[in-house]
């Protein structure tokens, strides 16, 4: 008998931690992990609502989110490896060529 809002608070807290890590951390890989944390928080929210409204589509959507997260992390880590090869660093402040 857990109120829905408890789940939502937890989900929001996970999301907030993800955002904080994304902003605070300087290691690229840690930033990526914060992104994954955000996605997880959102997943929890989806599932909670699915249970609340008896809509199974919520869980299916979570499935898709996970697929996309997998694909994204694969490509992202490949990019990180490529950047590491050229820049010799994982400090995101030094990957600053993305500008005009």
């Amino acid at each position, binding site marked *: 008998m857990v109120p829905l809002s408890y789940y939502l608070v937890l989900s929001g807290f996970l999301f907030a931690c993800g955002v904080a890590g994304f902003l605070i951390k300087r290691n690229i890989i840690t930033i990526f992990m914060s992104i994954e944390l955000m996605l997880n928080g959102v997943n929890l929210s989806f599932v909670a609502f699915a249970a609340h409204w008896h809509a199974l589509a919520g869980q299916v959507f979570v499935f898709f989110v996970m697929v996309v997260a997998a694909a994204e992390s694969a490509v992202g880590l490949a990019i990180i490896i490529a950047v590491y090869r050229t820049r010799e660093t994982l400090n995101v*402040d030094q990957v600053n060529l993305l*500008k005009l």
Partner: protein
Amino acid sequence: MTSSLNLWLIPVLPLAGAAINGFLGKKSSRTAVSTIGLVFSGAAFAWALSVAWRFSVVSLPYQEYIAHWIRITGFSADFALYLDQLSLVMLLVVTGVGFLIHIYSVGYMWDDPSYYRFFSYLNLFMFFMLTLILANNYLLMFIGWEGVGLASYLLIGFWFTKDSAASAGKKAFIVNRIGDFGFLIGLFLIIQHFGSLNFTDVFDKVRPLSTETSGAGFLTAIGILLMVGACGKSAQIPLYVWLPDAMEGPTPVSALIHAATMVTAGVYMVSRSHMIFERAPQALMVVAVIGTLTALFAATIGITQTDIKKVLAYSTVSQLGYMFMACGVGAFSAGIFHLMTHAFFKGLLFLAAGSVIHAVGGEQDMRKMGGLRSYIPWTFLTMGIATLAIAGIPPFAGFWSKDEILWKAFSSEHGSWVFWLIGVVTAFITSFYMFRLLFMTFFGDYHGTQVDAHGHAAHGHDDHGHGEPHESPMVMLVPLMILALLSVVGGLVGIGNRFDHFLEPVFGSGVAEAAGEAASSVQEYLLMGVSVTVAVLGFILAYLLYVSKPYLPQKIADSLGSFYDAVLNKYYIDELYAKLFVKPLVDGSTSILWQGVDRKVIDDTVNNAADGARRVSDEVRHMQSGNLRSYAGWIAAGSAVVLGYMIWLGVR
């Protein structure tokens, strides 16, 4: 309906000549250019003669409609021409004297590199002047008015590479413009009160109006404003300052424009508007006062000048003053009569002066001349005749017209003995300085050096460098002789008031003419005698000072000291104008308009706009630092805002 006189040919023929010479003249030979110039102006003169021949069978005033121009409700003005006795007189004078001067210019300007341009401008001037004279409404006349101002500017500054010539051209145009401003306002008032600018319409509406005796009404305002325009064009006080400077132009220009024709446009305009003036006595008074004062003022300056053309320039201003004096006392036909005779003898004087200058190789200072009568006898003869005419010695032309003016100044109901007295004094001074000019130039010993004859290219026109003054070629002498003949017999048309009667249909409906006839003829002959006496006195004084005792003038000048200096420097009027008007204007323009408006407002607006864009972009570019975390931060901030908004929406 009488058959058409085809008046339009008269202005258009010189226009065609101007166009042909203007566009094709550069590549043409001198002969071709002269032929075109002479043929077209000669044709205009011939046509004017034929018009005069047919004059008696034409119903007057004759109006010829050429083309439609402005037609709006409440106002219309067309390209239409108007002929009556007044315009016929002006027409013959302008085309005749103009043609003679064209002939003269062939000789005078022969060595000038811009030969074709001169004839093009000269023909252009004729076109505008004839438009001015023949127009049937004030607006078309104004076009001619402005056009002759333009032609004058072009011709004064003909040798535009010379700074003084270019400045003189500008001065003429600008001072004229000031007068034109008054003229325009007068025209606006005419439109406002009479709804039209056509002569017939306006004068028909003015005719029944009564004379404005008490206080000034709108007719007085119109009259005074028209007079302002005339002051500009005809070089009266206070707008005469351009005419002496205009002597920078070639001598034929001075003869045609600044003696015979353009400067008389003001007199013509005032005479044409006589109906307005006659009903506005204060305006007439203004005209007379200005004319009289100018006559005296300019004459006094003429006494001291040493440049032969400047003396003639001030003389022109003075004689124009006489014409305005005549108009101002209501004797319009006397003014026109003097205009005609003045065209003859002043034109002759300028042409002869040009011949003198040509003879001595470009020198214009009379102190470097002298004794020329043995070298250039024909020039001396014609110039002598002209001098006798302008001095008012009978039976030459000037006597008849000047005497008529003086008589009318005394006897007319608008006149007074004050005008007459000043006129007589001015006549004395005129005679004096004209004979002074004659004696200094042609009598005594030749003061010019042989070398001078070579080197003075002040006009860029001629250096035969023979080292000795020589007579001008026939092409220059023939016009001199013709004009001399006219100066002798030209005044005879005035005998027995024949000229007056001829112009009576034009001026006769005025109120001023009638009284003069009835005055006693004894008085008239008495006054005639006075004016002849003063003319002779002037001759004697000049002879005394410049032939018998040539040391005297310097002594007199020294004893008068600073007063003499003031007169010599034209009463410092130019300097006064420069200080009062020109300098503040230039300073104001520099500091306010240039520094203030142009630099600060306009330039700075543009510069600051660009600067502002640059500064803003400088700040904003920090957003694209390439730093991933700052991008992340911006994303987070943006999404926080959106989230916050959604929450707030949901909570509301």
